[in-house]
């Protein structure tokens, strides 16, 4: 009843091309932003920040990056962890090797390095497609893992291969409290989400989707597969690289290549698929689902006062997690974002469905 677009007429294309053309959506988004910026800082606990909100935000960002590649451009990648790692280690090197390097700049430069590596590993995509490409991207994953373990220069000659950063600050504000970190992540993620959204609804985004849906036809209407694919790899790895730098700098503080292992790559792929391929919003849904679900499952027994063995609990967690993923895929193969828009469609028709 209340979710209607009746009476909202668009008088210009500009109005029609807003990100949220329906007024109710805009209000909802404003409310959510208000919640994120004002309400959460008012009550969230340190645990909530550090264990849930910050990882959620950073992984959302990485998922947005991956979604551009997989969801929009249709190039499945299992090497996301590697690009995150490049972002993190590159940012680290900029930070320790150049005095007075602002943290944000280091992160962006880290993203730039990830872009370079991403484009390099994207080159095979011009020839290799689909699952073959997916598996081939694991080359990036394993190579990068190896390189950061083996080449001491990358880790500033740390004997163990583990690196750490400290004294983070952003525009002169020290990022030492969880709230500060959270707000920093929130800002960065929102800015990137907006930029990404603009890209995917611009003509470059349409090129990506065209390549994804039917590359021969795309070529015939004048889209260059080289440019489209490599630009998707570039943009995607840039965002993923920045997310990697944030994961290292803001979330972990100290890390080793294992923080960006193949498990991370799979985790991100889960996020974009469960969240919804080809949907920026979906990346957030997916990240929320994948970050929060295991933690919740893990704590559920304790919450109900049931005492079960740790091993059993985590086996159960893994089982339920797996089952839920399958369940979601069955309910909506196109992800939570689609579920969301179907729900909205229903709501629009409610209470007279047909």
């Amino acid at each position, binding site marked *: 009843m209340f979710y209607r677009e009746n009476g909202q007429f668009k008088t210009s294309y500009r109005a029609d091309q807003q990100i949220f053309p329906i007024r109710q959506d805009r209000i909802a988004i404003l409310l959510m932003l208000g919640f994120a910026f004002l309400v959460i800082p008012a009550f969230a*606990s*340190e*645990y909530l920040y*550090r*264990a849930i909100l910050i*990882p959620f935000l950073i992984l959302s960002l990485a998922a947005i990056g991956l979604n551009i590649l997989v969801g929009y451009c249709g190039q499945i990648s299992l090497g996301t962890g590697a690009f995150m790692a490049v972002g993190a280690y590159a940012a680290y090197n900029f930070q*320790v090797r150049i005095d007075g390097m602002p943290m944000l700049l280091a992160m962006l430069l880290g993203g730039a390095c990830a872009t370079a590596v991403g484009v390099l590993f994207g080159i095979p995509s011009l020839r290799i497609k689909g699952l073959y490409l997916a598996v081939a991207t694991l080359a990036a994953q394993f190579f990068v893992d*190896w390189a950061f*373990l*083996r080449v001491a220069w990358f880790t*500033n000659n740390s*004997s*163990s*291969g*583990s690196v*750490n950063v*400290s*004294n983070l600050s952003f525009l002169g504000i020290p990022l*030492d409290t969880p709230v500060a970190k959270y707000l920093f992540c929130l800002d960065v993620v929102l800015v990137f989400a907006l930029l990404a959204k603009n890209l995917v609804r611009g003509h470059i985004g349409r090129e990506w989707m065209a390549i994804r849906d039917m590359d021969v036809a795309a070529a015939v209407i004048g889209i260059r597969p080289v440019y489209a694919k490599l630009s998707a790899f570039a943009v995607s790895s840039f965002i993923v690289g920045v997310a990697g730098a944030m994961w290292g700098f803001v*979330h*972990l*503080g*100290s*890390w*080793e290549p*294992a*923080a960006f292992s193949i*498990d991370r790559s799979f985790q991100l792929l889960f996020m974009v698929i469960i969240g919804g391929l080809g949907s920026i919003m979906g990346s957030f849904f997916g990240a929320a689902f994948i970050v929060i679900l295991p*933690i919740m499952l*893990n*704590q559920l027994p*304790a919450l109900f006062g049931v*005492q*079960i*063995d*740790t*091993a059993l*609990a*985590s*086996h159960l967690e*893994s089982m339920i997690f797996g089952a839920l993923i399958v369940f979601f895929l069955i309910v909506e193969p196109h992800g939570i974002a689609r579920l969301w828009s179907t729900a909205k469609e229903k709501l629009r028709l409610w209470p007279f469905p047909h």
Partner: protein
Amino acid sequence: APVTASAQAAKEQFFPVLVYRTGAYAPNGVPFANGYVDYLKLVNAQGGINGVKLSFEECETGYATDRGVECYERLKGKNGGATVFQPLSTGITFALTEKAPADKIPLITAGYGRSESADGNVFKWNFPLAGTYWVAADVLIQHLAKKEGGFDKLKGKKITLVYHDSPYGKEPIPLLTERSKMHGFEFSAIPVTHPGVEQKAAWLQIRQSRPDYILLWGWGVMNSAALKEAVATGYPRDKMYGVWWAAAEPDVKDVGEGAKGYNGLALQHGAGQAKVHQDVLKLVHEKGQGTGPKEEVGTVLYTRGLMSAMLAVEGVRRAQERYGKGKVVSGEQARWGYENLALDQKKLDALGFSGVMRPISTSCADHMGASYARVHTWDGSKWNFSSDWFQSDDQIIKPMVKAAADKYASEKKLTRRTPEECQS
């Protein structure tokens, strides 16, 4: 088995327990966790620490850093605040090293973690009690020298390190490089990628270069896989020496006969029964509260769990001496306890650890407290000690620790503690 004996009253000392009972490293993680928890139960059965009962809660990390961090965040403020964390993973240790100072919670990494964290003046919250990997590597070289009949006999020998390709596996390399320069043995290192099931290439290389000794820095399945490859390529097991994490029952159990003659370090303790084991059996297992199977009590990793828990508890007991007996201490107060541990033989005897380990005494500057280890050998069915105690050579390790700690301090813009600051 119950996981949480959670605090009903706040008058309990809370010990978070980071474990990994699942995943690739579960076979090694489980006995350690069982030992750790059993010891806490034992202390409770014996009346707590001066009457203060212990509460504890397990959290599964799966040996993954981000899960470990989440566990840390989840548990650090629970039940009146965590006393001390023991991550049991080098990766998690690195991550928590960054977080613990801000939260004022000490980290015990008995027999693992970063070697330079023995320097308590820089690593104010880390306690690599009872030995680091540099100690381990040093002791192994000493042992080999002794076997060969002196350090000079090492000259020209080939020693190969087969290591888990992670910060854990890489820790001993600086020390071994140092030693090889000193004694002129040929040192080489072969990495094995996680989880270490596929080692054929490594062992082909070994078969070609035929090193005189192999040092094994593996964890989990990598150890047994290495032994099996040694069998398959005919490398003599008695020339193989594992670090103390590569010399427990799960590592050799399913290699069986093939592992006969394989040597490993004992981190102070080996396998076997001591009074503390009897106590656990009597006061915990017989009450039906044992965490794992009875047969496990006395195995290497189980005992290490006991020992680690004991160190955690004794630090609190020591802290109570200063901050009030019978009172729950905070993490910060506990740290004082860990920094001033004085576990002499008498105390150890009283605790039932006689024969298990040597005395440990820490200080502000020395967060390790002891640097002894010995070698034990698998006879096909059990581990037997096969050497006497070695103490690592401070002359080598001290400067290395200092240099590495200084580098860390300068990166993090930390200042060394002065002796005055130590008093507080």
